[in-house]
């Protein structure tokens, strides 16, 4: 049986095929297309597969993210409590750029004229203060119908505490508007805080018809081609869901495209025996950083595609910085050397591409340092050293550095920026970089990985077999996953553990129901409980995982104090603790490919050639060059060395060693593993 995964990005669509018999993977890359679905089928054709041979098809896509950024989605309406139609526009009032009065927050996804109010009010405890005026709902339905709007977000104040008015509103709207899609905030995200809940619901309302339609068309075309299974779509939380669920929970795909790389990073690290990993996915314009701790890829609820409009579904936590191969080095007004975030992108690209780019980029610097060879993609593209030299001297001359020194300075500044971003991702949560492996992928990740690891005191770097299509691989490696939650704000000291247990059981019932509807057998269901708690008076909560049924809260409280101390370096055991929220992750295990593994046989391969490269010293050193596809498991290489491959270049600096493990990863030991 074939497993097929396709990951659509802004520029390229990547495909990864895994054959269960024989355990071989095949990969491919095609340009993304105007209708992204076309590229899916082009990529399938490119690897010579027919949908009829596919047993499992999974898919990551930036369709939803792009729709939000470009505002290309169907007009949507909002129905909300009287007095609150502007909550969505008022947001929390803040701007991303505090100082630039000409940089504005983007407008909301629904225009003011399409936000309708109904008379009703529920208080914080769920008590009804004012009954729902159904005439208002029918009036809104009338206006929505006349305006030809087909998707509605119902967002009422305090509906997390009592959803009955939202439910009734939905009933009426569905009756009056049989063709419209209605999402309620109490279904989409039953959490306290109106703006965050409304904003998530609105994102869901605008995205569901769009990605639902996309998923349906994709599923139909796959079916026409002979595929008989479900189309599984990767969601922001790092799981997949079926096309049917996507039609109702389209908002969950808001960061689908970012999640895949993080998932692959975590999986590859775990296979190689590492439970803690930092993923560095460095492409042409930016780098995405993800973190896995104790075998779990870190997720967050603080997520937004655009500043000001949170989408509080659990999302794989990825931080992006403007540091890629095409990032431009420049000298600022005070004479200081800077790097990024502006990028030469792929057009015109770095100066050495000789396509009209004149600005000095990281790629130009790496070429001058000999770390990159003079051709890319197996010779399909040549790089021009003199163009690179001319560009780099533009930043070298003003600060008195020759071309080589300047190239080294450019790379060092890029690495420092990346290191700061990784440090912020690790240290601020109390993690020690020395406990991590750095998984370097994307076209440019393996070029910078080893030096970056040294800078961060990370002892090991893992470079996957196909760094450039690692994200597509990620789509192959996920289970079906849904997240359920319930607000339950009570003092931990006065809580009946049985009550908590009952609530968890109820959430789990809903979880089983959803998984069952997606065709998951009971034996393949895994339900994970977490309890969010905080000190009374605190605003953020900490999540503690709950094993088994709850008989008492004592051990959970203990875990809370410990976790608080680990993350924040102090605890207040005498202070009262409150329970904030109950969460259940519903996982439907899907058959996962066993990546090909071969017992490593230790050997020292002969280099395929040599070239001069600069590292820390002033002189270029003779550096062995290997072809990646010629390296077998067990191969041991001592730095300085360079491994060239179709989609990337791996640099092993002097003093470091590298070996190829059983999964064909290149494992670099910084400092030779001492």
């Amino acid at each position: 049986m074939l497993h097929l995964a396709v990951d659509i990005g802004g520029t390229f669509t990547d495909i990864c095929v895994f054959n269960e018999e024989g355990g071989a993977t095949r990969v491919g890359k095609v340009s993304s297309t105007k209708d992204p679905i076309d590229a899916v089928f082009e990529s399938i054709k490119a690897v010579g597969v027919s949908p009829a041979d596919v047993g499992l098809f999974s898919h990551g896509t930036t369709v939803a993210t792009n729709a939000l950024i470009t505002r290309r989605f169907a007009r949507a309406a909002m129905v909300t409590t009287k007095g609150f139609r502007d909550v969505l526009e008022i947001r929390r009032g803040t701007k991303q750029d505090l100082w630039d009065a000409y940089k504005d927050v983007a407008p909301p996804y629904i225009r003011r004229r399409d936000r309708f109010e109904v008379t009703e009010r529920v208080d914080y405890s769920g008590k009804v203060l004012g009954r729902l005026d159904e005439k208002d709902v029918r009036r809104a339905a009338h206006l929505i119908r006349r305006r030809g709007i087909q998707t509605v977000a119902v967002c009422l104040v305090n509906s997390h505490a009592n959803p009955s008015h939202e439910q009734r509103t939905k009933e009426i709207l569905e009756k009056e508007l049989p063709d419209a899609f209605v999402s309620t905030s109490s279904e989409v995200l039953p959490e306290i805080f109106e703006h965050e809940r409304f904003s998530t619901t609105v994102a869901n309302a605008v995205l569901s018809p769009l990605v639902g339609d996309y998923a349906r068309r994709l599923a139909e075309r796959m079916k026409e081609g002979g595929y008989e299974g479900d189309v599984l779509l990767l969601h922001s939380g790092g799981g997949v869901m079926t096309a049917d669920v996507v039609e109702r929970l389209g908002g969950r795909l808001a960061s689908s495209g970012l999640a895949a790389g993080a998932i692959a990073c975590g999986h590859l690290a775990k296979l190689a025996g590492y439970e803690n990993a930092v993923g560095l996915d460095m492409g042409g314009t930016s780098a995405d950083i993800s973190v896995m701790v104790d075998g779990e890829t870190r997720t967050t609820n603080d997520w937004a595609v655009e500043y000001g409009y949170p989408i509080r579904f659990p999302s794989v936590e990825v931080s992006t910085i403007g540091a890629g191969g095409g990032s431009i080095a420049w000298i600022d007004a005070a004479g200081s050397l800077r790097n990024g975030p502006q990028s030469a992108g792929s057009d015109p690209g770095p100066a050495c591409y000789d396509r009209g780019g004149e600005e000095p980029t990281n790629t130009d610097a790496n070429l001058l340092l000999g770390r990159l060879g003079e051709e890319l993609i197996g010779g399909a593209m040549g790089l021009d050293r003199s163009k690179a030299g001319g560009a780099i001297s533009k930043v070298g001359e003003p600060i008195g550095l020759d071309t080589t020194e300047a190239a080294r300075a450019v790379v060092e500044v890029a690495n420092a920026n990346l290191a700061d971003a990784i440090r912020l991702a690790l240290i601020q949560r109390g993690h020690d970089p020395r406990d991590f492996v750095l998984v370097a992928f994307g076209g440019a990740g393996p070029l910078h990985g080893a030096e970056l690891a040294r800078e961060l005191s990370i002892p090991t770097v893992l470079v996957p077999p196909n760094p450039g299509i690692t994200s597509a691989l990620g789509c192959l490696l996920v289970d079906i996953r849904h997240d359920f939650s319930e607000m339950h704000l009570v003092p931990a000291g006065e809580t009946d553990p049985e009550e908590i247990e009952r609530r968890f059981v109820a959430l789990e019932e809903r979880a089983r129901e959803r998984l069952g509807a997606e065709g998951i057998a009971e034996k393949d269901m895994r339900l994970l409980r977490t309890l969010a708690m905080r000190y009374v008076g605190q605003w953020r909560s900490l999540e503690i995982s709950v094993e088994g049924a709850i008989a008492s809260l004592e051990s959970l409280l203990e875990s809370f104090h410990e976790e608080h101390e680990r993350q924040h370096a102090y605890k207040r055991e005498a202070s009262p603790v409150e329970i904030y929220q109950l969460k259940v992750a519903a996982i439907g295990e899907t058959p996962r490919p066993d990546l090909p593994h071969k017992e490593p046989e230790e050997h020292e391969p002969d280099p395929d050639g040599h070239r001069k490269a600069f590292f820390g010293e002033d002189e270029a050193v003779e550096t062995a060059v290997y072809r990646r596809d010629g390296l077998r498991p067990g191969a041991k290489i001592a730095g300085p060395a360079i491994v060239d491959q179709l989609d990337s270049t791996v640099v092993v600096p002097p003093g470091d060693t590298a070996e190829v493990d059983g999964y064909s990863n290149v494992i670099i030991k910084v400092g030779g593993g001492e």
Partner: protein
Amino acid sequence: MTEKRTEAQTLDPVTFEVLKNAFVTVVDEMAEQILRTCHSFVIWARDFSNALCDAEGNTIMQGSQDIAVHVGTLHFTAKAVVEAFRGDIHEGDVFAINDPYVGGTHFNDVRIIRPIFAGGELIAFAQSNGHWADVGGTVPGSFDVGAKTHFGEGLRIPAVRIWSKNEYRQDVVNLITSNTRAPDDVEGDLLAQAEATRVAEREILRFVDKYGRETVKTAFAEVQDYVERLTRSRVAELPDGTWETEDYIDGDLSAEEGLVPVKVKMTIEGDKISYDLTGSHPVIGSFLNAGMGTAFSGIVAGTKTFFPEVPLNSGFYRVLDVHLPENTVVNAPWPTAVTGFCSGAYEKIMNSLFELWSEVMPERALACCFNLEYLLIGGQDKRSDPSPFFMWYDWMVGGWGGRHNRDGSNATSPVFGVGLAVQPLEGQERLTPVVTSVHEIVPDSGGPGRFRGGCGVQKGGTLTAIEDTVMSYCCDRARSITWGMQGGLPSCPHGVWLNKGGPDEKFLGAVFSNVPVKEGDAFARPSAGGGGYGDPLLRDPASVKEDVEDGYVSPEGAKRDYGVVVREVDAELAEWEVDKEATEKERTLIRGGRLGWMREDPESVAERYRGGQIGALDAIRRHGVILDWGTGELLPRTTEGFRVMLERRSTSHWKNGGPRR
């Protein structure tokens, strides 16, 4: 502030860039740490800031998301600690300070300062400043409008030691927390802030390990030199010249009505900027005065708005030469009350600078912006027994000023701090017996202009199960209305209404404290929109129509403010159209009459307001008349000052306007 330091860099460019960025990361890590552990809802809403200071207390780096009002003050408090404890600062010590008379902001802003030692040498200070919800005083929330001296405002904390050589001084901390209405939360915040400074210490020591102490110390100095160089090179590109303006606090509670001026003269000469605030009004009898530190902060923040890409540290301050005349609203001495500076003199300085810099950089022009309004309700919450003390302290967003070729932004946090987030009402309702009735954008609140000011909002509520409860308001601009420029017009007045439309309706104004309220009372207040930019009669009628379709402007407002007559095509579809002919007629009528309307007898305008024939926006925008918005009583001196202001900023720019004074 004028001492010039620009010796050559001694670090190689890479080490310098690496450490400079690393210092930014350090202060951002401090911010993350605080957000994750704080107790005060004010801090949680991002009313805090962090800085790394050198051994002399100069700021090396300040957080990129910090609140504007703290900018340019953190070095003062670090220096105050150095001053107070010179020769007696040890490893493991931590200090606290909130003293506005040595450069702090107000008593609620408590700063926790940790010295950082490397190899036994003091090399830096890590400072974390957070707004505590309460620091005592006569009024819940410690905002006593009527206070003339600080004794009623709250607890003044001079530099004190709260950890001595790693030993927590619970006695000292108790002395602080026992003087607040929320001792537990206050101590929680103190610990969160202290932990943030520890994060900074750990990181700085890591750099010392890696690069060596001397290199790190050199970087501390060079990062400041770098910012100074960067700023000077930008300033040198600008034309030399002198620009002057003034803005006004509503009045002096202890004196006769009349606007209270804050004057700013700015001179650019070569690569230096100087500001002279001579001529600003003497200290007034309410807490809207600014101390020396916060006035300086207003200068820094106002300038920085026009240099958004320049990092903030003491290098930036060195480019500014600031003269703050003593005993005035911009340099109030001990023991003058200063807690409300943020709504008072501080913001007038900032907005004055917006106007001055708009002349220097017209492509970045910005008319007057909404600023902080802060409503405080505190009392007994009877929803549970025993009834705990509750604090409902609330602030809103408002509109920002019209800009060059662009409308102002709607519903945005105050210039006081764009990072200050509004609170979720669902959270407030859980914690306090206040049910919010409305939180929405107010039509016509944006100052009319060719480019309209952003819209303000209104928020109101009903008090439920309360006892012994009082309300206070820290605000301004009920009279010195948020202004437009280049012919643009003002927005709308601030002020709290109690039981509006009911038999016991009352306008409480924009500054009051300790007003008793009872169960069932309803309150509401608007936030100002931004001032308009350019003559409103030149606004594209299509933009006015679009504003009407979305309800940012009412059909009546379109006619009154823009001379645009719109007709309903199909309101159910939100479709309107411009009646071109009627618009032309209306615009001609306004053009012919408007200068005369501005000269109309103020008393007759007041009479029509009292009679209900005209509203506040007519009085302000058509006639330049300022009233007590509750009683309709004319404020003659204020009106006189307001009309002079309008002529300078608005009417003289109209094509049919008089000569500029």
